[in-house]
């Protein structure tokens, strides 16, 4: 008993030190970019960062769930494309805003469900399945748009990506609510326990009478839905949807989660870690943008960061 509590204290200590480190990195970024990019430390830019991270932040929630359960979804970037384009095309065709949004979310649920059924029922590795669906869904984006950007939405739609409530962007408020809800599910409900249990030992979980395949299908469907929500905010902010919408998102989000201490093999990690990871990456991208560094150099930095984050865990 004593030993257990001492190992518990030790783990808490490790966790604490990781979060201290993450917050330290964020402080360092503020310091660095504050000096190097004059516009960086303004209220307008801080809100801008929050607005920019709100989309990948929303997707990071279900992806953290999936990673915790020992799975991965590499198709989220393409799902952003499919859902955003679905919604955008309906809006351009003059359909009511609510209907278009619901259709986008439904599209996300369907493609997420497809991922889930293939992984859960056919028991093929999630990584490989979602590589396949990534290519397929991206192809769907090109077929739907014929390579042309979809734009020209009703004015009321732009409120989502550009509007404020009490000075805070709507998308940031939604992100905050989602994180609180997700934290509750993960830490306080049976379902949250199931996710971690599957990540720790899938067979034991199944023998305990938990329908592992259903949990997986649910997780992937949830991932599709959250990704769809993010894509709707994204096209509202960008005011157009292209065939390449959201491509490369998976790298940002997975890197954020792994920096935040989510175990790549599943079973351990905290949602707040992912959130700090998202902040680190969002600030990094914004700061480098302000300094005029192109996206491709940013991806070198992200790649190195990903290696460092994962290598450290095994230390």
């Amino acid at each position, binding site marked *: 008993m004593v030993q257990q509590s001492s190992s518990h204290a030790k783990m808490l200590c490790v966790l604490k030190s990781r979060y201290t480190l993450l917050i330290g990195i964020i402080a360092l970024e503020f310091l660095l970019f504050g000096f190097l990019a004059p516009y960086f430390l303004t209220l307008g830019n801080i809100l801008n960062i929050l607005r920019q991270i709100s989309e990948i932040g929303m997707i990071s929630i279900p992806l953290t769930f999936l990673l915790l359960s020992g799975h991965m979804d590499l198709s989220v970037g393409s799902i952003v494309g499919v859902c955003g384009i679905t919604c955008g095309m309906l809006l351009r065709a003059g359909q009511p805003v609510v209907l278009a949004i619901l259709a986008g979310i439904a599209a996300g649920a369907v493609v997420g469900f497809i991922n889930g059924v*293939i992984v859960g029922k*056919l*028991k*093929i*590795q999630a*990584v*490989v*399945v979602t*590589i*396949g*669906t*990534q*290519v*397929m*869904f*991206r*192809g*769907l984006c*090109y*077929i739907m748009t*014929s*390579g042309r950007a979809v734009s020209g939405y009703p004015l009321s739609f732009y409120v989502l990506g550009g509007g404020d409530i009490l000075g805070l962007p709507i998308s940031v408020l939604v992100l905050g609510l989602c994180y609180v809800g997700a934290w509750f599910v993960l830490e306080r409900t049976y379902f949250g326990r199931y996710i971690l249990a599957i990540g720790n030992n899938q067979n034991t979980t199944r023998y305990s009478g938990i329908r592992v395949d259903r949990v997986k299908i649910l997780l992937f469907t949830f991932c599709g839905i959250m990704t769809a929500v993010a894509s709707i905010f994204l096209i509202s902010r960008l005011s157009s949807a292209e065939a390449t919408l959201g491509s490369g998102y998976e*790298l940002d989000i*997975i890197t954020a989660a*792994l920096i935040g201490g989510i175990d*790549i093999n599943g079973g351990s990690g905290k949602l707040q870690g992912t959130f700090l990871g998202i902040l680190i990456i969002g600030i990094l991208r914004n700061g480098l943008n302000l300094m005029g560094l*192109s996206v*491709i*150099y940013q*991806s*070198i930095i*992200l*790649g*190195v960061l*990903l*290696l460092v984050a*994962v*290598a450290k865990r*095994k230390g």
Partner: protein
Amino acid sequence: MKQHKSRLSRIFSAREMPIIVFTLLVYGAFSVMAPNFNTFNNVSVIAQQITINGIVALGMTIVIMIGGMDLSVGSLLSLCGVFAGMMDNAGLPVALTVLLTLVIGTALGALNGLLIVKLHIPDIIVTLATMNIFRGVAVMVTRSQWITDFSDAFLHIGSSKGGLFSIPILLYVAVAVVFAVCLRWLPFGRLLYAVGGNREAAVLMGLNVPSVKIRVYAVNGFLLGLAGLLFASMFGSIQAATAATSLQFQTMGSALIGGANIFGGAGSVLGTVFGTILLGMIKNGLVQIHASEYWLDFITGAVILLALLVNLIQLRKKGRC
């Protein structure tokens, strides 16, 4: 009883049979739909088009065979291609350019393997990271410019003919034959099946699994160097940011269609070659029947998923899954 099986029935029960039959069916279908498809000219165009993907797919096959995965192939090809082009622009003799490019490819491939083995990071994460790093470095060294204006000798590699066939096709065939022989008869090839088939058993047998892994990624890098050379030489120009961006999916598709198993331990040269031919044929055929090029990605993805399913069914039949 098994010995009495006739040679013919053995051929028909081969692992590669479904893909070969399917390839022939698709060939027939396109021949009916597009009058120009089934011509000598078009077939040789397809053969020329698939050489780069084909060479890379063979590397991907051995990587998948040991239970790995390489997402960085397109980026590494681009990096090798721009290095080759820049060396040629700098006036290096072609032989030296070729040699250095192959060395760079091998070294960077080995780097992938080293990171996986030494840092204990899953293959897919390492290559996801290096995919971005290699691509970024390639763009950085070229300052986002097209690399072009190659010397005649350099262009010669991709365009000249050796007998009836072009050099790229001959190179592809040579690589495929070497791979087939290695995997079937040479110790290193058998090692790959051992490591991929049952890692614990391989370790218990005293095999140095990490070293095998590094060597496989090094061979893969060597092939990417070769493919990068061919890319620059065949097209006469190369741009770091856009060269071969979806290569990892195309080649993974070819390998999986050809019967390579994502859990490791299975894969064949013949299967992968036919997988490459199938994807190349679909690409060419879609153009011939005037279908939109936008369908290509969708069909590639669908074929990958289909291949995974067929793979699964074959495994279940054998009771291995």
